């Protein structure tokens, strides 16, 4: 297990290098000269050249890349082209915000999804099952943007129960986290239900029942445990998606997170900031996947990494 972990962690290095090269080439292929954007409307050619020179944007691309890489290895993430602040200052608290938001959302989403999925599977075609599956369908289809605005309108403007923003108080996290939890909850519920149903139709369940095991044991020990394998993958996938894909929620709830920073940086062609935020998103994705693989082994003793 330890060897496996070490190998997987070492593999991160080439992976991140490849991601950084791809992102670097993509942002330089993107139309839009950052120097022009920094200089702004009405800047003369001389102003633009001065900005280019100041930020080293007039150097050949590979020189820019290796300078950047060398600095990263030394722990210097560079300065944002837009704000002139060190990238570490720009990104640190935003990354923490996004981790908090995504974790809260996935916890809420998993609990809701699992409960809904399990109950639906055990009471197939019941009223509860039908209602849950309709909610899940809506949950998968609705955008967090719309859902977020509507929940603000209801809970903040009309009822006045919850603040629509503010990360200082725990209250400020309720609306964004539940909004963001909606889609994973729906996905998890659907996945849990279909998996449970599939497994409940297996021969070994029939054997367990024939042996006279109580329903509870059959459900939890035989069906749920086997169903969880795939569900854990879905949860991991969803968490990964939330890390970079919470842009809409971060925007609607005025929450500074890494997704919003990445989008704002792309708009402003803020290369150093794009690089680091995208790399961090990729890194969290890979680490979440690693965690999922380890969880497999814990849930399913047949899987071993030795």
């Amino acid at each position, binding site marked *: 297990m330890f060897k496996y972990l070490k190998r997987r962690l070492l593999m991160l290095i080439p992976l991140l290098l490849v991601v950084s090269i791809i992102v670097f080439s993509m942002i330089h292929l993107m139309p839009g000269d950052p120097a022009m954007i920094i200089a702004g409307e009405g800047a003369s050619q001389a102003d633009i050249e001065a900005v280019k020179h100041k930020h080293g944007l007039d150097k050949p691309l590979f020189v820019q890349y290796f300078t950047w890489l060398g600095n990263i290895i030394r722990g210097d993430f560079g300065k944002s082209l837009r704000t002139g602040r060190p990238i570490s200052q720009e990104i640190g608290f935003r990354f923490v915000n996004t981790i908090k938001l995504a974790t809260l959302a996935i916890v809420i989403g998993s609990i809701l999804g699992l409960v809904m999925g399990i109950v639906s599977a055990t009471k197939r075609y019941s009223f509860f099952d039908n209602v849950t599956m309709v909610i899940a369908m809506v949950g998968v289809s609705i955008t967090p943007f719309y859902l977020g605005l509507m929940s603000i309108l209801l809970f903040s403007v009309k009822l006045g129960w919850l603040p629509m*923003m503010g990360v200082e108080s725990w209250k400020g996290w309720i609306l964004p986290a539940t909004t963001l939890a909606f889609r994973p909850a729906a996905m998890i519920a659907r996945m849990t239900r279909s998996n449970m149903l599939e497994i409940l139709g297996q021969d070994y369940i029939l054997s367990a029942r024939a042996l006279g095991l109580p329903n509870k044991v059959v459900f939890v020990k035989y069906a749920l445990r086997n169903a969880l394998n795939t569900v854990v993958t879905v949860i991991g996938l969803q968490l990964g998606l939330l890390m970079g894909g919470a842009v809409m929620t971060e925007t609607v709830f005025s929450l500074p997170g890494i997704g919003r920073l990445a989008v704002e940086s792309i708009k402003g062609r803020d290369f150093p900031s794009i690089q680091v935020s995208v790399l961090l998103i990729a890194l969290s994705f890979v680490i979440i996947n690693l965690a999922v693989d380890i969880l497999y082994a814990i849930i399913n003793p047949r899987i071993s990494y030795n």
Partner: protein
Amino acid sequence: MKRMRYLALVMVLVMLLSVGCSSSGGEAPGAEAPSEAGSEASTPAKTTLVYGVGVDATTMDPHFANNTPTGNVSFQVHENLTAFDDPKTMKPVGKLAKDWKISEDGLTWTFNLREGITFHDGAPFNAEAVKKNFDRILNPDLGAPRRSNFKMIDRLEVVDEYTVNIITNVPYAALPQLLTCYNASILSPKATEEYGDQYSAHASGTGPFKLGEWIPGESMTLDRNDNYWGEKPSLEKLVFKIIPEDASRVMAVQTGEVDYISNVPPFEIENLKSSGDVTVEMHEGFRTIYLGMVINRPPFDNIKVRQALNYAIDRDAIINDFLEGSATYAIGPEATSIPGASSDLFKYTYDPEKAKALLAEAGYPDGFEIRFVSPHGRYIMDRQIAEAIQAQLSKVGIKANLQILDFSLLLNMLPTGKDAELMLMGKGSPASDPDFDLTNYFTTDGTNNWYFISDPKIDELTEKQRATMDLNERYEVLQELQEKVQEELPWASLHYERQIVALGKGVAGVTVWPYEYIDFSKAKFE
């Protein structure tokens, strides 16, 4: 499953890139606020005003600022040698300078400075400080993005502690206006020397508010400057809370979580007016929204075609249907409320028949096809207006293939002149004087001459008005210049944007300036 995971990673990255490339954020200022502030709105002792803005300031170093929202925040903290007297009259008066006089040859401006003012960090304000600031702005090694705006300034001379000479290399009549720009703000020389390019985090001006806590992307808190030389603000704290989404910003003023918002979308006016405690105000603005035509090649090389385009646009419909009346009908490139702007120009009205006739005369009886570009989210309802114009043009036979682009892409694309014949854009007036705008947009070498206009008469009159020190004479030259620009007609000027703001319960004393600066120094709760 494994493949699916990497697919998902790729999807996230692609999604981020595409979101970042396709849409562009609205331009609005930014800031912070404890969320509880709003819920205590009814207590009489309220001294914290929370202002909800769309974007964060990029920097608190005004010499490096390049957008109005950033300038707006900086102006709460920094002051300039000059300022304007009143939003209605817009006459330049002394701020950190008491007064000034100009030498006979029009090259030396002597500014008498106010005495006894100190910066937030305790450094004294004097002639030496002024000189150091302009040396900083003009230093080519610093890479200040707007250095060339000040290229007419040759050098500064300290005469005595409170007198400074600004020496220009050519006579430049609009210097007092130019000195009101946020790029010309006076910073503490002690702070700029100590922090260099990290000044922004330690900003220290002479203004009514001091920089407090700044959480980038979330909020910025400004504290009252208790040593302010002028009338001290009654607010203890001014918080800029960043709320990027228009709809959220509107709801935030309804819930009372913020006390003030700007850049209100016109279609929200009715909604806000109906929600009890909120007041909506509309103020004049200096921003012109226009259609620019590339005139160095067909079809817009023909003046008749440019006139036809001006007749083909139904400006009233745009102002009433999309902007809910929050704009003024444009008759020329300069908003008529700018001092020196002409209000006596030929007014183009909607006349599709005349447009068709002119097109036929120009040799296009069946119209033509052009490429038309517009940003999205940069100006009020820009995309919708561009689409309406596309429809209006089709009625006279002009097929405009509209492409909505990210503003940053447009900034790169327009100077080449290759990718479009027609553009919907906006022009602010940072110095609140026609010189700046007419030079940049309509002279042969103008930085924003995206229409490839090259007219010796326009170039000559631009030079002439700049060197005419007598105000009335200068206005006459400006009138002639604007008539000439309208004769050449590189634009179909559409409207002058008004600024829509919404005030929460009890907010008073806020001054909205037409150059998109909102002054909170006299704000209070009633």
